[in-house]
């Protein structure tokens, strides 16, 4: 036992104090938030290549001519085409030829005729592909102009009245039993948990394999297993490395929570909250962060998620899922002598993991489908798929049965992997086939 703890300690310590681990663990949440900000910023920057669009109004629908200046036209609704820093409009009723367009300084040309009144479709030709920001601005501007025209032509209403009467439905979905609203947002949270699960099992499972290969290739394993049973060495390695993963999960959770709370304080004190709410058009006058979240359709999911249950079961499924895959990876590591040799054995071991990752994409769409239910019971996929089901709510006995199946499978896998491991680590000089590895299962020591 004492020796076992010494091995666990070594596996844990040597990894936790690595610079890369410390940086990833402390900066992980900050970097993730930072990455999102940077991407948003870059996306913003990308659209700053200014667009200059020529509207060719063939039938003079939305523009009128200013007497004296030939070809140049003015929009009838000037406020529809408001000025934007990244977008400039010019209006005419004479289309340019392709050559003329290319020679001009316009980046895009939009032609419209009577047809738009019925089809509500226009063609935008471009020399430089316009950004989404530009196209959505054009769509909005032109849409309003055409809308105004239609209201004027086909009704007796003035546009302001029309706008007031127009209805846009916001759909709030609610589970009749749990009273939970907007479950699809919760699925997103579950999906994030599942992604982290996949990532951690993968990364730390590979750590186990690499550790086993290192010990085997430098023969240290012979010294160690002369003082501790191979099965115990394997379990100590898995526990040590699994704890490294748990440490990272714990620190990340803690840091994210602190960041979240800190952001809340900042938002409350800086007036950002008020700005955000006026932008979102939230009716409730929330002064504190939590009631702001409560009031937001998109963010109130954060308040509804049972974080303790998610984190608790998440930790369980991580530990069990890690044990399952890590024992598989340990057996593979023991069978080969270098990481390059491990590739052909890794593929079959990783397939179920990859499969659950892909299935997750589908489950995200319909978390209460048959596929989701089945996959949440299969031990090789359940650690990942169960997280999504947990986020939207799942009968407690489903979770319990799934957990039981997983634990039993883990026990069997560790026993089997231990046998392969014990034989494999002392074999040198040949690559075993899968069949040989199965034979090791029945070897006596």
């Amino acid at each position, binding site marked *: 036992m004492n020796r076992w703890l010494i091995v666990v300690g*070594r596996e844990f310590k*040597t990894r936790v104090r*690595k610079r890369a681990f410390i940086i990833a663990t402390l900066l992980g949440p900050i970097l993730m938030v930072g990455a999102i900000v940077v991407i948003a910023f870059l996306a913003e920057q990308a659209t700053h290549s200014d667009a200059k669009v020529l509207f060719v109004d063939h039938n003079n629908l939305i523009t009128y001519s200013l007497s004296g200046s030939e070809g140049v036209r003015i929009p009838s609704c000037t406020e529809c085409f408001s000025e934007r820093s990244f977008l400039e409009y010019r209006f005419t009723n004479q289309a340019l030829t392709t050559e003329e367009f290319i020679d001009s300084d316009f980046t895009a040309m939009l032609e419209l005729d009577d047809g738009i009144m019925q089809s509500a479709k226009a063609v935008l030709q471009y020399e430089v592909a316009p950004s989404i920001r530009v196209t959505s601005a054009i769509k909005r501007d032109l849409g309003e102009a055409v809308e105004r025209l239609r209201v004027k032509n086909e009704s007796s209403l003035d546009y302001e009245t029309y706008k007031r009467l127009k209805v846009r439905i916001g759909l709030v979905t609610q589970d009749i039993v749990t009273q939970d609203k907007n479950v699809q947002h919760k699925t997103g949270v579950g999906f994030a948990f599942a992604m982290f699960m996949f990532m951690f099992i993968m990364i730390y499972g590979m750590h186990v394999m690499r550790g086993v290969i*290192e010990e085997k290739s*430098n*023969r240290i394993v012979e*010294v160690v297993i*002369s*003082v501790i049973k191979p099965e115990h060495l394997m379990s100590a390695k898995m526990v040590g490395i699994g704890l490294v993963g748990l440490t990272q999960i714990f620190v990340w959770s803690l840091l994210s929570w602190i960041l979240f709370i800190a952001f809340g304080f900042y938002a409350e004190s800086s007036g950002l909250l008020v700005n955000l709410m006026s932008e979102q058009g939230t009716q409730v006058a929330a002064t504190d962060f939590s009631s702001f979240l409560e009031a937001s359709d998109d963010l109130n999911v954060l308040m509804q998620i049972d974080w303790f249950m998610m984190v608790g079961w998440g930790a369980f499924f991580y530990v069990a899922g890690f044990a399952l895959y890590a024992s598989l990876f340990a057996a593979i590591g023991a069978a080969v002598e270098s990481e390059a040799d491990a590739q052909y054995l890794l593929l079959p071991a990783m397939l179920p993991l990859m499969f659950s990752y892909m299935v997750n994409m589908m489950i995200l769409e319909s978390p209460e489908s048959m596929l989701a239910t089945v996959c949440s019971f299969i031990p090789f996929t359940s650690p990942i798929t169960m997280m999504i089901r947990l986020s939207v709510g799942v009968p407690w006995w489903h979770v319990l049965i799934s957990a039981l199946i997983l634990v039993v499978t883990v026990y069997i896998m560790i026993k089997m992997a231990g046998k392969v491991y014990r034989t494999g680590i002392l074999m040198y000089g040949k690559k075993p086939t899968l069949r040989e590895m199965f034979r090791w299962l029945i*070897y006596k020591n």
Partner: protein
Amino acid sequence: MNTVKDSKYSALELIAVRKQYGDHTALDGVSLNVPEASIFGLLGPNGAGKTTLIRMVAGITGPDSGSISFFGKSLTSEHINEVGYLPEERGLYKNMRVGEQAMYFARLRGMSKAVARKELLDWFERLEVDGWWNREVSDLSKGMAQKIQFIVAVIHKPKFLILDEPLSGFDPINAARIRKEIIRLRDEYGTTILLSTHDMSSVDELCDHVALINHGRKILDGPVDSLREKARAGKIDLIFRGNLISFTAALGSGAVLHSANSTGDNVHEVVLGLPESIPIEKFLKWVTTEVDVLSCSPQSVSMDDVFLRAVQDSGANKIEQS
């Protein structure tokens, strides 16, 4: 062959040990007796079963049948702390510092932190690797790393030490130093050392006893001196000037002519086997009357010769000597 019985106590005794891996018989009824406080050379071509035997003594595997006794008791996991093991082609953990790594292995052998540290520092100084305590393993030269591995194997003062090719990778100066340390361990601490090696010169220099195994069977064992003597088997090298044919005719049935080689000018080098009934002095007296003897000496036999001859005699044609 006879088992060595010239020491009062045996540190390790194997009786009819067998080990099978699938269809392959790694050890086929091997019996060995390693006397206490001796250096015992374990020899044999690659794949002979040496590694299997070593792993059993190191406690990594057990025999399918037969018994292993360790200082008179059956070998069990209780003896872990009394065995030291330096495997072949060994390495160190890359992600640990030298001292920390040495501490880890010392503690795995049951040493307390304080004692381990003190003993390690002594050894570091003795082998001139002090100052490397806090360095990265990747900074070590091959020889340095080998020294650390040696220290790690002996740090807990094991009663029984297994060294698999301990001198490979050392330059001649450091090899001599390690050799000295091995001898010191035997002489000062009474450590019993099982030394597996292909390096016959270190067998000649270090070993008190040897055993030779091939194809999972022991084909030879005994004290080094008596094995040499036996291999020599009364053979003498004789160089003389004279007529080879009349010399041969005169030998009669008493002695056997193993080989003859003419170097010209009527000088011949011959290897003769004398029966025990003819002492060498009597033979010399007789032979000087027949030919002009230039030199006569008992044939010099190295362990290399003993090794090769024994392997050949055992009927193995596939010798992969490295």
